[in-house]
């Protein structure tokens, strides 16, 4: 020890770096008798944590050092967010510390720290981890085993022990659990002010012997009685870290007082510490030793010992072992700084929740208020300390209300959002807040109500742990893992690499890998491996973008993946996060030997969201993989919170739009044909319609767009009669009207719709006759332009007129085959035409969509009777215009067909119907005898059967591939240079594709791809699963569902029909009330006298008594007949869910009212008397007696229905009742008349007779009040 340097705390804090030091560098200086630690150097046990390259060991000081100082209890002087951790002071400076081999006497005595870790911390300078220590005063060392001293909780009052009669209780036993420190508002005895007193609870399994005595220590204590001790007050609470260290050991406390506390209606005896309380440190006993096994489980709770692998979200989520996660979500939990990555922790009383998620099984260690964590070995790594954030966010509150599996899931979602950057980094807090909000909203939309768990507060959950629901945990959880793209891509890569190394081991055949790095195998006739989202159990998060190579990709901050989707809506906002729950992962070009390997051997893990596993092998295989998804499966994350749809609508205000139709798309030619320069632009051939759309959305219309209330895909089209301009009907369609007014429905992804009127204005104006020759132009795009990808061949589009746009500038001067530059920022909307038949066919309200923006789907869904529109804008035109437009659109159909690039205009005449081409007519072509292929251009659609690489080409083009396509049961061969074009993502076996403008070679069923040919992938078959072409789009794009407003007629009672109503002396009072309960209900079949009752049904209610409340007092309101009908809401439609309950009513489904169903019951039983004895209806209907006059028993469903009737009345609206008071005589008279016994004497309520009942409209009342005020 001579050469050891004495360090001060100041030295460490000033240095500010994480270091580790020891008094002896070579020999173990263990001096305390801790049984668990013989090696004290933290570096001597590093192998326990799986090696992670990123982790760094703490820098060791290369000279022997010691630190002298005192370990103290937490105090207010050192502000630490964790509040209750030990302090270490050397007189000069105080820092937080944690200590291994803790002994009671160490508190307050001067110790010499022999080996330690120091970690700098922002708030208090640093944190000292004391690994090994000894007392400075060696004399005390001798006494350590000799006696057990006592430690008063409040030192200054030590002498006055046993002075108070009340504080005479003692507790001795095994400390089972400890609660975190919580604050309880208490009355201060001195100033009678309410103060917040901190305190914590401990649970002790105590011995029945009340008095603690030293003699009794070794007597056979039976620790069987469960006792709670509350450490109350600032000083007592400061013992929290000490008591925490004692969990699982024997303790004795004396000087306690008893108190009866009420927890959830039950009284509980709790011992409370007083000024005189004394803590007796643990003594050695054979009984109470802690189990040393790693996992010790008792029921649902148990202990777990393990190394911390990672801390996430400020320590809320702790990764323990593989698929073992510790959740420390409760804000109140006191966590030690020393819980760091790499430390060995012992968790006591933690919930073991083995949860089966769709992606795999996870063991969740859920911490509750009983859980205590002690660190057994400090981490040898330089990892950050756990610091509580005092900020309580709405997310943390939300998370606390969930069950453990849902908590884990929500935290994982929160971490996933980290991968997306929106806010500038200088607003860090704000950003994290909004991610919290985003997470909360997303979680709220996903987590079912069953995953919520009511919280009872610290006292309830600690003392009544078993009964407060802490026990009942959902074992299965169908929440899918939410993963950002980068984690997903990485995981797939890891998975493939693992497979590859496996193959390497198994086969050592390198030839199967030799080609893998090239794309040679890409179109090989091997099956691409397809993984369904159901198999992975993973939901993907990403943003859509078009990559520089023209491919559609889903990406996040660091990674991206190619996406194949049959239809892309044009209003996809690139900045929004999309959620993809339903997809197929296609892995192409895998060596054949790999295909048969089980792919999901390595399932997805939560850890793959958090920290990527490093790739075992690097750069050995570049397997392209892509996603295949439908429109419906790609949703904006928060579609109820759109911010730009308003902008969309605004764009339609007073707008002027051009219409065009895409007739062909030319592919992106990267590394184009030899001899051809690289083309930087992409082209689309479009037909400009000679009509412009003029929108005049008025303010009122814009202010009242329709909202879709629910996420139903069901939609109701608004049927609005369209006005046509001056006598369109009278004119024949040959003379074209100048203007057609139409109805426009604008949709955006956020389910909002706007219906407005618009005008189609004819551009040809005076030049009649030019009408039918719509102009064909070439639109030039830069390849990155998302518009290029979004436009579909055959689709109609709207473009807003802008004065500086070259499309618009030369609008009047456009002639055929002009090339027009298209600005990438130009906004386009897909357009759909439909024609209203109302004007011509009487009564028929059918709307026929004629042409859609997604023509591929129109072809695909031949068996689907009604397609849902999925265009951004749909125009409803009068039926008369159908002829006018179908001429255009038919023309377009023709134009879309054979059209040679060089001889544009001449070929229009020779276009054939698609059907003829589909039936493989190329056989009629002449056999080729020239150098270049000769033949017609064709367009057809078929299933790709195989893609073979060919060395000898049939024709003299650089056709390196032969695509075998099945078209109408005929095999067609298409040769061509397949390059990796944007449109070929996912191309291969099982693809259904449309081939546009491919050239016939003259040989039968043989074609070549030219540089103008375009391949569109419509769908893709997944292995052993139906193809993707499900017509499920439109979920995000629906017209609002129009729900008929529930209209409750206000039924006024007819003339009074009861003898009591004639009581003239009684003054009638009017009051508004709600029905609390139904006291009595007499139902019978209608009396023979028809004049007495005007009910449509066969039921009569001669007497009914309702307990009503007008807000100030409760009345018993008697009434009969129609008024009772009203209050019972018998005329209302029976809600559908009740029909489910009342099974038998189904057969009478022709009648929907409650009265009708009641009629059925009353008819059987003639007379039913229902009585309810309580003033409130209890849940179990225990107080209800139902008596019937018929011999038949009430069936179960009838009984149910009658009870439901009462509930229905209670849940009714506010009624306005005009009533007159009743006295006992009248009630007696009623009793006699109806032969019912009423215990009115017992029922101490004011009885009234209701003369008139009507429903109250609070708004009407408010208005009348206002009128009164204004007039006064």
């Amino acid at each position, binding site marked *: 020890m001579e050469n050891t340097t004495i360090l001060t705390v100041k030295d460490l804090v000033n240095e500010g770096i994480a270091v580790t030091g020891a008094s002896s560098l070579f020999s173990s200086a263990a001096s305390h008798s801790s049984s668990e630690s013989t090696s004290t150097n933290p570096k001597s046990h590093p192998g326990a944590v799986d090696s992670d390259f990123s982790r760094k060991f703490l820098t060791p000081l290369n000279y022997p050092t010691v630190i002298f100082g005192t370990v103290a209890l937490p105090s207010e002087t050192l502000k630490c967010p964790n509040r209750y951790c030990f302090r270490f002071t050397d007189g000069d400076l105080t820092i937080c510390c944690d200590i291994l081999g803790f002994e009671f006497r160490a508190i307050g005595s001067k110790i010499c720290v022999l080996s330690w870790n120091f970690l700098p911390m922002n708030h208090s300078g640093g944190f000292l981890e004391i690994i090994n220590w000894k007392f400075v005063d060696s004399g005390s060392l001798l006494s350590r085993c000799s006696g057990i001293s006592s430690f008063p909780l409040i030192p200054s009052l030590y002498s006055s022990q046993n002075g108070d009669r009340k504080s005479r209780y003692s507790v001795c036993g095994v400390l089972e659990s400890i609660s975190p420190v919580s604050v309880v508002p208490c009355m201060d005895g001195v100033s009678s002010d309410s103060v917040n007193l901190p305190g914590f609870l401990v649970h002790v399994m105590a011995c029945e012997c009340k008095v603690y005595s030293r003699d009794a220590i070794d007597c056979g204590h039976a620790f069987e009685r469960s006792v709670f001790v509350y450490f109350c007050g600032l000083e007592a609470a400061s013992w929290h870290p000490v008591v925490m260290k004692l969990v699982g050991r024997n303790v004795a406390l004396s000087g306690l007082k008893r108190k009866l506390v009420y927890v959830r209606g039950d009284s509980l005896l709790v011992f409370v510490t007083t000024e005189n309380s004394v803590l007796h440190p643990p003594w050695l006993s054979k009984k109470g030793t802690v189990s040393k096994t790693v996992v010790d489980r008792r029921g649902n709770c148990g202990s777990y010992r393990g190394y911390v692998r990672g801390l996430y979200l400020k320590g809320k989520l702790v990764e323990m072992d593989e698929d073992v996660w510790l959740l420390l979500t409760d804000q109140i939990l006191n966590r030690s700084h020393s819980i760091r990555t790499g430390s060995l922790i012992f968790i006591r009383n933690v919930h073991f929740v083995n949860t089966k998620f769709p992606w795999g099984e996870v063991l969740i260690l859920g911490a509750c208020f009983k859980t205590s964590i002690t660190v057994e070995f400090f981490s040898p790594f330089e990892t950050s300390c756990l610091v509580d954030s005092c900020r309580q966010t709405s997310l943390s509150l939300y998370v606390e209300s969930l069950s453990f599996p849902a908590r884990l899931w929500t935290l994982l979602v929160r971490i996933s959002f980290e991968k997306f950057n929106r806010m500038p980094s200088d607003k860090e807090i704000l950003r994290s807040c909004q991610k919290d909000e985003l997470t909360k*909203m997303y979680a709220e939309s996903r987590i079912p109500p069953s995953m919520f768990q009511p919280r009872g507060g610290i006292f309830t959950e600690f003392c009544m742990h078993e009964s407060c629901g802490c026990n009942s945990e959902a074992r299965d959880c169908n929440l899918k893992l939410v993963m950002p793209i980068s984690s997903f891509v990485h995981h797939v890569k890891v998975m493939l690499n693992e497979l590859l190394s496996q193959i390497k081991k198994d086969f050592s055949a390198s030839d199967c890998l030799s080609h893998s790095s090239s794309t040679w195998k890409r179109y090989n006739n091997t099956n691409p491996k397809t993984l369904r989202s159901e198999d992975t159990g993973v939901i993907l998060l990403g943003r859509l973008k078009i990559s520089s190579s023209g491919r559609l990709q889903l990406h996040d901050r660091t990674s991206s993946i190619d996406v194949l989707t049959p239809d892309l809506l044009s209003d996809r906002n690139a900045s929004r996060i999309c959620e993809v729950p339903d997809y197929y992962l296609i892995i192409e070009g895998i060596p054949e030997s790999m295909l048969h390997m089980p792919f999901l051997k390595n399932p997805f893990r939560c850890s793959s969201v958090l920290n990527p596993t490093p790739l075992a092998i690097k750069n050995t295989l570049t397997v392209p993989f892509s996603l295949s998804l439908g429109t419906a499966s790609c949703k904006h994350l928060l579609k109820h919170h759109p911010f730009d749809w308003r902008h969309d609508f605004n764009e339609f205000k007073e707008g002027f739009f051009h219409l065009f139709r895409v007739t062909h798309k030319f592919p992106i030619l990267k590394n184009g044909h030899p001899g051809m320069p690289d083309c930087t632009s992409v082209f689309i051939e479009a037909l400009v319609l000679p009509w412009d759309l003029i929108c005049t959305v008025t303010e009122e219309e814009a202010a009242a767009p329709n909202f879709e209330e629910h996420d139903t895909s069901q939609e109701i089209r608004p049927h609005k009669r369209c006005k046509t301009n001056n006598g369109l009907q009278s004119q024949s369609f040959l003379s074209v009207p100048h203007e057609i007014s139409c109805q426009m429905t604008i949709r955006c992804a956020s389910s909002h719709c706007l219906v407005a009127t618009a005008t189609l204005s004819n551009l040809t104006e005076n030049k009649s006759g030019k009408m039918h020759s719509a102009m064909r132009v070439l639109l030039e795009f830069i390849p990155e332009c998302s518009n290029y990808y979004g436009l579909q061949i055959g689709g109609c589009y709207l473009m807003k007129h802008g004065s500086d746009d070259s499309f618009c500038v030369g609008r009047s001067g456009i002639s055929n085959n002009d090339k027009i530059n298209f600005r990438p920022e130009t906004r386009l909307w897909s357009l759909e035409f439909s024609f209203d038949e109302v004007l011509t066919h009487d009564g028929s309200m059918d709307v026929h969509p004629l042409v859609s923006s997604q023509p591929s789907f129109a072809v695909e869904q031949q068996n689907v009777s009604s397609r849902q529109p999925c265009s951004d804008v749909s125009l409803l035109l009068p039926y008369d215009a159908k002829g006018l437009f179908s001429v255009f659109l038919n023309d377009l159909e023709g134009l879309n067909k054979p059209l040679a690039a060089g001889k544009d205009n001449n070929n229009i005449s020779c276009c054939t119907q698609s059907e003829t081409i589909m039936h493989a007519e190329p056989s009629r072509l002449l056999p080729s005898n020239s150098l270049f292929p000769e033949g017609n251009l064709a367009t057809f659609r078929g299933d790709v059967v195989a893609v073979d690489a060919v060395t000898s080409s049939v024709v003299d083009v650089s056709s390196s591939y032969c695509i075998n396509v099945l078209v109408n049961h005929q095999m067609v061969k298409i040769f061509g240079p397949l390059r990796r074009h944007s449109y070929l993502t996912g191309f291969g076996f099982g693809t259904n594709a449309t081939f546009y403008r491919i050239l016939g070679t003259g040989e039968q069923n043989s074609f070549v791809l030219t540089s103008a040919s375009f391949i569109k992938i419509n769908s893709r078959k997944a292995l052993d699963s139906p193809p993707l072409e499900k017509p499920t789009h439109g979920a995000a794009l629906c017209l609002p569902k129009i729900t008929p407003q529930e209209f409750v007629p206000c039924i006024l009672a007819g003339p009074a029909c009861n003898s009591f109503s004639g009581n003239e002396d009684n003054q009638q009072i009017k009051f508004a009330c709600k029905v609390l309960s139904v006291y009595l209900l007499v139902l019978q079949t209608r009396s023979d006298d028809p004049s007495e009752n005007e009910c449509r049904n066969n039921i009569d209610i001669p007497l009914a008594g309702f307990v009503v409340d007008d807000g100030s007092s409760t009345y018993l309101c008697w009434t009969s007949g129609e008024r009772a009908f009203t209050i019972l809401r018998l005329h209302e439609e029976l809600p559908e869910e009740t029909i489910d309950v009342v099974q038998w009513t189904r057969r009478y489904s022709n009648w929907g009212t409650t009265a009708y169903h009641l009629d059925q019951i009353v008819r059987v039983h003639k007379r039913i008397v229902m009585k309810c004895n309580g003033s409130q209806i209890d849940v179990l209907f225990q107080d209800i007696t139902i008596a019937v006059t018929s011999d038949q028993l009430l069936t179960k469903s009838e009984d149910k229905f009658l009870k439901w009737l009462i509930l229905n009345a209670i849940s009714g609206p506010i009624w306005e009742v005009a009533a007159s008071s009743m006295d006992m005589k009248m009630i007696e008279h009623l009793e006699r008349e109806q032969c019912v016994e009423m215990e009115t004497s017992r029922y101490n309520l004011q009885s009234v007779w209701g003369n008139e009942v009507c429903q109250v409209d609070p708004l009407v009342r408010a208005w009348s009040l206002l009128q009164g005020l204004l007039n006064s």
Partner: protein
Amino acid sequence: MAKSQIEPGVPITLQELYPSSLFYKEGVSLRVTAMLRGYSVETAIGVIEDGGRSLKINTQNIRDVSFRVGSIYQFIGELHIEQPNNEAILQARTGRNVDGIDMNLYRKTIELLRQFLKEEDNSNMVE
């Protein structure tokens, strides 16, 4: 200079909020009620609209209010005029959902309230 005292939010309708209006000033405390037309979680900016006029609301400081487009909300906060285009944005200090409110009735009550306050002021002056 920052205001030393927080003023009460004067209830107004959005129609009264036009550039030359008495209320269209930097730092004026207002209470506005209108239907939420759009809301961006990313920027925490919502747009409320009533009677053809809309107003941006910065909800950065609001917690525990869940925003649903189409619902009616009431915000109290300070008006901030963004200079280049003289656009107003309300820095909301509190907000709540007031679904079910009858806007016409509410407008009338604002009038009544103003009338009352005016009379009160006058009577105070007389004394």
